[in-house]
């Protein structure tokens, strides 16, 4: 297992190096201003990916992250338009994000509904509510004293303030996932929710909390997004859930849960941000960039399947029963419950 991880992350690093080498050949890639731009450009995606990582580790998914971002952005715009001070808006928006996350959590954890279906539903619902709030208007003119937090770098360095926020969140997630009991139990839940429950892990409580965290991080990302573009629109970050999911899976996290590291996801984020930046500098259109993100997403799942170690092939039946158990999240007291992974 461990050597597989290492190999995956080595491959990612190679990807990083290749992208950076390409970057070095384009004009202005290594300039401090471009590096800041590169880091800023992926700050929201990084926050969403960090929110998704622990959820995917438990074998669930949250496709509504970008819609939560969109709703929180629209809410920020509405409140700012209504004359509220930005200091008051921030806590309200974060609470709103947690509330959105709690709707997901209640439906998935309390009602036992499949997270895939629920978050496809809330993806539409939250984005729809964003349109209800703002329509097709755009709110601009956010306070100049806060905007630098999302646009500027710390004086004398190339590190943007927003990147510091992302790093802090990243470190917090690293500690949570890799250095706490809860973190260990995320893997246990992902490998078999039933076994984890019988081992005394509070599966429901942990999953519930993860969805709340996801909402809070989406709200934080929405504040950065809104300030960075100085524009609150209902379609802010539309479709960004793809990029976040791609980063998580490219980072070597198994879509079935139970496998993956924060380091892998961080490397994947860096590789994707550099790639996007290089393509941008080479005038590749946004649409082609989306094609490449889509291909990366498919490849990240395809490659480990194709290059599966041989020994799993020798015992097909055993591996399939493990898969089944994992897929169905077999759960005796909730006979009808299924997880999303089969889908």
């Amino acid at each position: 297992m461990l050597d597989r991880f290492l190999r995956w992350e080595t491959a990612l690093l190679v990807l990083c190096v290749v992208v950076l080498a390409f970057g070095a050949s384009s004009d202005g890639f290594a300039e401090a201003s471009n590096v800041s731009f590169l880091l800023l450009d992926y700050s929201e995606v990084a926050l969403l990916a960090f929110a998704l990582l622990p959820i995917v580790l438990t074998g669930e998914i949250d496709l509504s992250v970008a819609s939560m971002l969109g709703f929180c952005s629209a809410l920020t715009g509405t409140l700012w338009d209504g004359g509220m001070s930005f200091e008051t808006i921030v806590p309200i928006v974060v609470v709103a994000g947690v509330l959105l996350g709690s709707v997901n959590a209640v439906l998935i954890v309390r009602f036992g509904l499949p997270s895939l279906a629920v978050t496809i539903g809330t993806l539409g619902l939250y984005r729809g509510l964003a349109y209800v709030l703002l329509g097709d208007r755009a709110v601009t003119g956010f306070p100049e004293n806060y905007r630098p937090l999302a646009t500027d770098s710390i004086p004398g360095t190339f590190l943007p303030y927003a990147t510091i926020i992302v790093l802090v969140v990243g470190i917090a997630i690293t500690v949570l996932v890799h250095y706490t009991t809860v973190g260990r139990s995320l893997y246990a839940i992902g490998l078999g929710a039933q076994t984890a429950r019988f081992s005394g892990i509070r599966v429901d409580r942990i999953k519930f909390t993860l969805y709340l965290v996801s909402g809070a991080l989406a709200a934080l990302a929405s504040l950065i997004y809104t300030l960075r573009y100085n524009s609150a629109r209902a379609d802010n970050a539309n479709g960004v859930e793809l990029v976040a999911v791609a980063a998580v899976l490219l980072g070597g996290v198994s879509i079935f849960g139970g496998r993956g590291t924060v380091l892998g996801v961080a490397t994947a984020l860096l590789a994707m941000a550099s790639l996007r930046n290089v393509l941008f500098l080479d005038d590749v259109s946004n649409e082609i960039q989306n094609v490449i993100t889509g291909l990366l997403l498919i490849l990240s799942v395809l490659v480990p399947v194709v290059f599966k170690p041989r020994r799993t092939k020798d015992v097909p039946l055993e591996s399939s029963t493990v898969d089944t158990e994992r897929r169905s999240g077999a759960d005796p007291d909730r006979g009808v419950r299924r997880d999303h992974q089969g889908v």
Partner: protein
Amino acid sequence: MVSRGTDSFRACGGVVHRRERAVIRASSRESAFAGRELGIVVALVAVVGAATIARPSFLSGQGLHDLFLNASIIGLLAIGQALLVITRNIDLSVGSVMGLTAYLSGQLFLADKDLPVIVVVLAGIGLGAVCGAINGALVAIAKVPALVVTLGTLYVFRGIDYAWASATDTTQINAYQMPAGFLELGSGSILGIPNLTLIVLVVLAIAAYALHNFRAGRELYAIGSNPDAARLAGIPTGRRVFSAFVISGALVGLGGVLHAAYFGTINASVGTGRELAVVAAVVVGGVAIFGGSGTVVGAVLGALLLTTITSALPILGVPAFWQRAVDGAALLVAISLDRAVMVRLAERLRAERAVRRE
């Protein structure tokens, strides 16, 4: 592990005993689904009733004509999606495939306006089937989860659409660039029933019959109920899932061509975000998201209900901006109801079993 224990427990029971239980289960399930389709019809009547009170012309001949027309293309997509969801798969790339095939039909007419309509229709179906085959190959052969594959191809197909548009420098293709016969296919009607609706009804009849009576159709349900058991029972699961993706892709391709024929203007963004509406329609129509149950008739009724709600919203004084939210909320309500029904069903079965044991 636990389920295996239960199975061996069942094996100890008498054969007759087991068969009786099977009969009970089948009938309970059937009544639940008849209930679902009835529920949709009731909801439809309520929505149409409310809208008719607010504006009587809603239920006029023209009003009904429009309702069916609006539901047609999404209904076609829902039939394909239902096939996939029944096998415990999903296709999130439908909006992009639809956009790509709509754009293809426009481009074909730009190249040669005298092209026979049937050639364009077949080309659209063919391209859709190819897209479906790509999804299907990745899912069925490479064993990558459908969610991930189709989330990826959603962006790949859409990107190809845009790249094509920018490479040929054609941002929009308009009605005057298409032959009258093609536009007639989209807007015409036979005996007062829109052509599009007739096409959907034919496809629906074939799909419903095949799914209910053909061996391959029944096997789709088996695969969705339990993929491993289906494989062990000798069902070629990979081939069936692949075929379901190809058929679904072909239907989406047809949907794209019909979209072009109906609206007459095509750009590279046709169908963006439609996957939500299609998945919502299928789930609202009673196809369980984890596979193994549901009907294509339900899926089409779900599409009809959602589009009717969309048409009724402005009449009832709700801004059109609510549409996306309503689609999402409908999906959530549907899966919550499903869950509640299943819990009740499970309780009833347990009670029946307890009575029998005494």
